[in-house]
């Protein structure tokens, strides 16, 4: 198991967002998390790399407990790339610098080597000619492809996606999903929070349906979409499909 979550709880003030999440994810698995807004999907994802600190429960990444006292959070995060809804490219740096800053400063990769790798990755997402551009000059879809490439530059074992296409204009969703599909095929472990049911069905190995801070149902996409067992899953799917 590359990710093992046990009895995860999280509240914001009085609001209970996660009410005991238990899930295990295998190496190379593509897990898609769906559910109504406010169900705790994003919070669950953000707990995995400790952007949110869990109140209770345990999270093991590659066998080590990340919530343990004295755990090296930065080191753990280096193994987990994250892609955000709002892209979050560094606005004070050009694209190449965006790609190289973490490898150079956090991983101490020599600059030339980091730049070479960055150019390869930009090429892979079809944006090598934008290396010297600044984030504000790119479209939403381009920014998100750079954000994916930037996360990959750290050579992570796990990629977390937090609604990566939700802030995009409809015509740009396809280009980002295409990159994610290619990535899924490469065998990297992925956890994707999304409203793109087509992507979940096509690319997901497993789909988790969350509601009110719990995983209500989990199954293969074929089973979950074709034959949902829980009433709430049925209600949700009838609204979005």
């Amino acid at each position, binding site marked *: 198991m590359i990710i093992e979550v046990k009895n995860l709880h999280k509240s914001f003030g009085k609001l209970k967002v996660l009410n005991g999440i238990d899930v295990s994810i295998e190496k190379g698995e593509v897990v898609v998390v769906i559910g109504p807004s406010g169900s705790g999907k994003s919070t669950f994802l953000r707990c995995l*790399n400790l*952007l949110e600190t869990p109140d209770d429960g345990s999270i093991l990444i590659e066998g080590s407990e990340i919530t343990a006292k004295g755990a090296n959070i*930065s*080191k*753990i*995060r*280096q193994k*987990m*790339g*994250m892609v*955000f809804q*709002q892209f*979050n*490219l*560094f*606005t*004070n740096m050009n694209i190449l610098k965006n790609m190289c*800053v*973490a490898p150079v*400063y*956090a*991983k101490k990769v020599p600059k030339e080597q980091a730049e070479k790798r960055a150019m390869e990755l930009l090429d892979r997402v079809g944006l090598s000619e934008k290396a010297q551009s*600044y984030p*504000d*000059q790119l479209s939403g879809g381009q920014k998100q492809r750079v*954000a994916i490439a*930037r*996360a990959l530059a*750290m050579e992570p074992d796990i990629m*977390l996606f937090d609604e990566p296409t939700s802030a995009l204009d409809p015509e740009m969703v396809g280009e980002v999903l295409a990159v994610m599909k290619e990535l899924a095929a490469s065998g990297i472990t992925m956890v994707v929070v999304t409203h793109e049911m087509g992507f979940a069905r096509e690319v997901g190995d497993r789909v988790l349906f969350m509601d009110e801070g719990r995983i209500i149902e989990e199954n293969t996409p074929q089973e979950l979409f074709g034959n949902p067992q829980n009433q709430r899953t049925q209600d949700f799917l009838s609204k979005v499909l």
Partner: protein
Amino acid sequence: MNFEFLSTYWMYYVEGLKITVIYAIFSVLFGIILGVALALMKLSKLRVLRGIAVSYINFIRGTPILVQIYIVYFGLYSFGISLSDSTAGIAALAINSGAYVAEIVRAGIEAVDRGQIEAAHSLGLSYIHTTRLIVIPQAVKNILPALCNEFIVVTKNTSMLSIIGIHDLMYNTDTIRGNTFLAFEPLIIVAVIYFTVSYIVTKFVGILERRLKASDNRS
């Protein structure tokens, strides 16, 4: 109106302006150092530091600058701390400016998008690297124009120092008024000089703001 006095007294204005600009520069400089320290205290997790910074800022912003100048000039003296006029003057203005700069700096740091910091953390960058490479460069961009405006405010505030005998622009204007028995005309000239300085700095800020914006989306 009679401006003939200028041919005799113009050097008074030049000398006064020199003093005013020098005092303004040093006051802003120390004000920035103090202001950055106060802003960091106000953003700190330690309640004591936050309390000190908040009280300081509230006190300075809630009292007249004239009172503050008198307190530094006479108050410290009565405690046996003897400062030269120039040190006391710059200290008073810096103490005042620091409170305003603190708010500018704090707002500039808080205006950095949370998502930028989260992205840096998610990539495994440490707190120190995130601060140095992401937060500070973006905050400086937010802060710089407002700091130049603070320079204008401090420049105008230096006129208050004439009351403790600093030979600044305002003091020299009063000297001219006394010598020439002209109550009004020397004031017109000094107003024009203050305005010109402010105007030049304002224009400079405008250019700076456009430059900073341009560097966010250079094409």
